[in-house]
């Protein structure tokens, strides 16, 4: 655990992912009455974390282009829910449920992070 702090990396990635997902949900919610707007989703954390290492190009310098910068944010998908007569496919209920789920995911990630931090602190003799 202390060599490369996987625990921190994983919980950091999870918190970041839930932040990004919440932003997508916010966009859906704001456009709930926009004609022709298609609801967007991000892949769940479990999928994107396991795929993330391979599917993205590695960027080792600031000048390198990341694959997500080229394609916008590549992992955002258009969800295939049924659209209302005005072409809008946002379901407010679904978005509410998603946002609560995302918040819980975020809290979970932060709890893990905090706990790892506590363990680290304990190991250097502080409490």
């Amino acid at each position, binding site marked *: 655990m202390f060599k490369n702090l996987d625990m921190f990396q994983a919980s950091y990635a999870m918190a970041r992912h839930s932040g990004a997902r*919440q932003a997508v949900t916010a*966009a859906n919610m704001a456009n709930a*009455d926009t004609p022709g707007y298609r609801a967007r989703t991000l892949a769940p954390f479990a999928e994107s974390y396991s795929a993330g290492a391979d599917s993205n190009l590695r960027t080792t310098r600031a000048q390198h282009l990341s694959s997500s910068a080229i394609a916008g944010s590549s992992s955002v998908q258009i969800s295939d829910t049924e659209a209302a007569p005005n072409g809008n496919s946002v379901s*407010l209920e679904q978005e509410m449920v998603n946002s609560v789920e995302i918040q819980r995911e975020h809290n979970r990630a932060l709890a893990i*992070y*905090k706990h790892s931090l506590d363990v680290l602190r304990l190991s250097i003799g502080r409490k």
Partner: protein
Amino acid sequence: MADFSDAMRITSSGMRAQAARLRHVSENIANADTPGYHRKTISFAAEVEAGQATGAVQTGRMSLDRSDLDQIYDPSHPLANADGNYDGSNVNLLIEIADAREAQRSYEANLKLFDQVRQMSTSLMDLLRR
């Protein structure tokens, strides 16, 4: 953190748009008995910046409902024509109330999400606390 400020900006754009919609609804209701008044509607569109959708919503131009005005029979009215009719407004109160309720629901949903994002960023800040 950037995602949180993004999310907050987007939800507040949603609230602003719904508030603008509600304002037009209230204008329509206030003028329901104004002779010759056409009801106002506004359109929503996804905000685009430098060719990319930002995720926020913006209100488009205000437009007037072109449907026929109500003919009200009142020969004693100063605006009455030869048949004794004058032009009322084309505001249908039922539609306006339903529209206002829908705007309220969407506004509440945006507000709820704003609160949730705020809670998330607060809990992130709490990590610094010991």
